[in-house]
């Protein structure tokens, strides 16, 4: 009774759970223009899923897997867009497809196709990882929306994501359920399983019994893929910023539902992977061009952000593309000897942050 009342009061005043404050970009998150200034390695449509495999560095672009080292050599092409990718030490590739399937290519289980986990349809594969050559960890972002419909999932305040351990050819086990769009996996050296939960802007560790513990919370954006960092810790790609207006709209269910019903997805008041490109997109007052220029600190629905996390998963450094830039929607990253490679899915570019730009 009391709880219901205080919820009602919070709703009335816009306080508590209904507050629209977003975490500040300060400390290790202080903005710079490093991603805008980064070297362009390769221009490709919507690159994603950087993975190191036996044949070299791979990334996905639409329904194709390309090899990065040799320009744009086509490795595989599928009948649906690729939403997740993982490579096993023995040369196998696991591919998550938009159409709701996970395929295995190469290795001992070549040709295996999974479209159900424990009887539940596999709708939204967002991230994959090999625990060992015959065990796959699968992140399902949602039980109803395909990966391309992530915006809808966010605006529905979806929390139907789950995490699975799938012995290839064996019986899958659900590690955790009720996650708000798990979107990246990291198998830490100490055996912990770290998952990024996009809509709750946090990283959690999932233990064997399904218990989750918070590792890093209150990120100023929606976290995506994780990659191991040399010397301990992790790289974290944050694919879109949180914003006061979006948080506010999420609480306005009436508006939100009508928006999802009547307006095309790219014109929603919702985070975006790409910088604004149409006059039909919503505009926030601070993003008005003054004297012919857009200020980098303007409120924005898209940005580029990569975080370096230390062994305790605390942010230590960050690389940005801000409101006035175009290399937005960073979805994956991987470290090599010459620095950090990142994919800007919204900016159609694979980029390299050179060693001089890293801490």
């Amino acid at each position, binding site marked *: 009774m009391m709880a219901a009342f205080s919820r009602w009061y919070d709703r009335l005043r*816009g306080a508590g759970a209904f507050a629209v404050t977003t975490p500040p970009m300060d400390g290790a998150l202080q903005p710079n223009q490093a991603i805008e200034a980064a070297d362009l390695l390769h221009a490709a449509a919507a690159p994603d899923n950087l993975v190191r495999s036996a044949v070299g560095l791979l990334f996905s672009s639409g329904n194709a897997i390309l090899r990065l080292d040799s320009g744009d050599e086509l490795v595989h092409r599928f009948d649906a867009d690729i939403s997740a990718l993982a490579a096993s030490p023995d040369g196998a590739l696991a591919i998550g497809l938009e159409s709701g399937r996970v395929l295995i290519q190469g290795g001992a289980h070549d040709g295996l196709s999974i479209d159900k986990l424990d009887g539940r349809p596999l709708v939204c594969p967002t991230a994959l990882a090999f625990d060992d050559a015959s065990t796959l960890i699968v992140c399902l972002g949602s039980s109803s929306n395909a990966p391309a419909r992530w915006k809808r999932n966010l605006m529905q305040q979806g929390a139907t994501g789950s995490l699975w351990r799938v012995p290839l050819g064996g019986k899958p086990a659900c590690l955790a359920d009720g996650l708000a769009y798990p979107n990246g996996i990291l198998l830490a050296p100490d055996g912990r399983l770290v998952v990024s939960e996009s809509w709750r802007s946090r990283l959690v560790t999932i233990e064997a019994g399904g218990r989750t513990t918070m590792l890093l919370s209150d990120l100023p954006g929606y976290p995506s893929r994780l990659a191991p960092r040399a010397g301990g810790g992790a790289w974290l790609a944050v694919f879109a910023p949180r914003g006061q*207006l979006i948080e506010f709209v999420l609480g306005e269910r009436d*508006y939100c539902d009508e928006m999802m019903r009547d307006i095309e997805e790219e014109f929603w008041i919702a985070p975006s992977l790409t910088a604004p490109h149409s006059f*039909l997109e919503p505009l*926030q007052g601070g993003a008005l061009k003054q004297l012919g220029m857009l200020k980098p600190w303007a*409120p924005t629905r898209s940005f580029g952000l990569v975080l370096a996390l230390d062994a305790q998963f605390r942010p230590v450094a960050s690389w940005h593309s801000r409101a006035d830039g175009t290399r937005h929607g960073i979805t994956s990253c991987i470290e090599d000897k010459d620095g950090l490679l990142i994919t800007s899915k919204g900016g159609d570019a694979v980029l390299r942050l050179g060693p001089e730009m890293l801490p």
Partner: protein
Amino acid sequence: MRETLTRLRYRLVPDHVLGEILAKNWIDNAIPFVILLLTLAVLGALIPGLLTLGGLSGLAPQFGEWLLVVLAMTIVMLGGGIDLSVGSVFALSNFVTLALVNMLGWPIPLVMLIALACGAAVGLVNGVLVGYLRLRAFLTTLVTLIIVRSVVDMLILAYAVKVARPVTRSAIWDFISFRHVLGMPVSLVVALTVAIAGHVFLTRLRPGWQILAVGGSRRSAYNAGLPVRRTVAMTYVVSGTLAAAAGIFYASRLNAAGSDTGVGMEVLALTAAVVGGNSLGGGRGSVFKALLGTIIVLIVSNSLIRLSLPTGGSSLVLGLVLLAAVAIDVKWLKNRGKVLSRVYVSPTYMKLGRSPETGEHSSSPYAVNDRLRDVELIGLGEIDGPEDPILDAEGNLYSGTRQGDIIRFLAPDYRRKEVFVHTGGHPLGMAFDREGNLVTCVAGMGVYRIGPDRKAVKLSDQTNRSWFSVIDDSRMRLADDLDIAPDGRIFFSEATIRFDMSEWMVDALESRGNGRIISFDPRSGSTRTVISKLRFPNGICMARDGQSFFFAETWGCSISRYWFDGPKRGTHEVVIPDLPGYPDNINRASDGGYWLALVGMRTPAFDMALRKPGFRKRMVERVAPDSWLFPNMNYGCVVKFDETGRITDCLWDRRGTNHPMITSMREDRGWLYLGGVSNNRIGRYRIPGADPEWTASASYRGDKP
């Protein structure tokens, strides 16, 4: 169904009035007034006969004296100080008056002058110490309170008996003591006269304004060149004199010099001043507030006596009242602005028609292209906010700037520029009249005419005040665009009466009819509102029939036509109902059509928000202003329409690189000149196939289409 209810709800309830009332200065009186009503209600119920004529008139003589003392306290508080010595001065004046009249038998007028002088002298001491030597007002006047009180006590000890024995009778003395004028005791008449004079002094005269300025912010007043020290000192002198005047009336009424005369009066006066709503911090307050406070405290304290509380009980109650008043004062001052900023923006329901197609390969007349990509740029980075550039007969280019200048770029290459005139406000819409004078709407100032000799003359800055507007809408807040009829009448738009130039976009969130079109007639010099309740009326352009003009309603996304002459005189009708963007200025084109600038584009998300006023209201309350949802003003285009409202041409800057927000365009000799109110350049576009001889003035003369 639900939407119908919403529409009705927002049509019937005028939400915006709340913010407008809160923005008024007199709202500070609201709390004391409510307290007064509560006091009367509660005490009137407790004490029978309190509110009868007899009950109230018994308080009248005391009321006059108290009012003078409260006024004394108020004027010092307005100047940012406090005067605790009013009670002692009151007692001193009482004793001096009685001593001179009863003991020495001096003539009454002289006695009064001396008593007033005594009060003024104590005030002067306070004033010098606080004003010039910069001592703390509280401590200084506390010390004078004690010293003057001791002096009076010593004198009373020595002369109490002699002083109280009347030796002479004087007609003047009797008049002051016992007579009534207009049913009121003389003291009250004098006090009310002083109050009226004080009101005029504080609100209409320079020294009064200086006191408020010094009290409001000492440093700013000093920086503005006001004599801060003298002003502060003066408030204490006035205060001493007023307290002494009260003492004289007290002497005439009671003819007694007891040692308890005026004891605790400073607390009463302070309570009254603060309860009335005069701010302890200084700078905010009025005579009327002092009057309200005096009435409240007088009624409360007398009622407490009538209720016969135990000893100290009434002091306790008065102390609590003071505490409450101070708390309210502090909270009110601190939160009024916050509350105002939360409630001022009050969105209303609005439903726009379907937005026309703009797709690149669609057959729509608005189909996107990139024809404005390669415009020539004039004055890039040298001007700020060319809202509506215009060209004169020699082809020189004029443009207003945010700094308040009108800049002239010289023909033929527009590389050299000069400040043509400084207006002081942002000049927006412009037009040349037949004599070659430049007439311009200056934001925040009104309509001005600038001759070739660069002399600016104000034509109009006031119109008739509408009856039911809470905001004083007689002043022009945001004159926007204008055009001149063949008979010389100037028709101009005032975009909104609720927001200033710096926050004009916020008006989009309200989308209420806040604007109007006004006409100025130079023959009679009169100004009057022609059409009111328009949704951000903006561009105005005379039609070629000489009897009507086109005007744009920016938030209404429509173009209408108004007839000021001819058979359809006084009527207006919509010509283009649903534009894909927000129309701004309209100007004539060489082919007989009209150019129209779209300052921004409609977005589905904002159109939907327009149908949900509650959504916008909550957004304004909870989200930081920088993050508010606005129409998309980072893109714009120019369209051309003909007399019937058919769109005949469309020019886009697709990426918004050079012209993200186009507020105006002007055709001249085959070129189109583009302006933007938040841009830093003027664009110049060669119109293919346009008449190279055509100028707007030729068109207005009738020589060209």
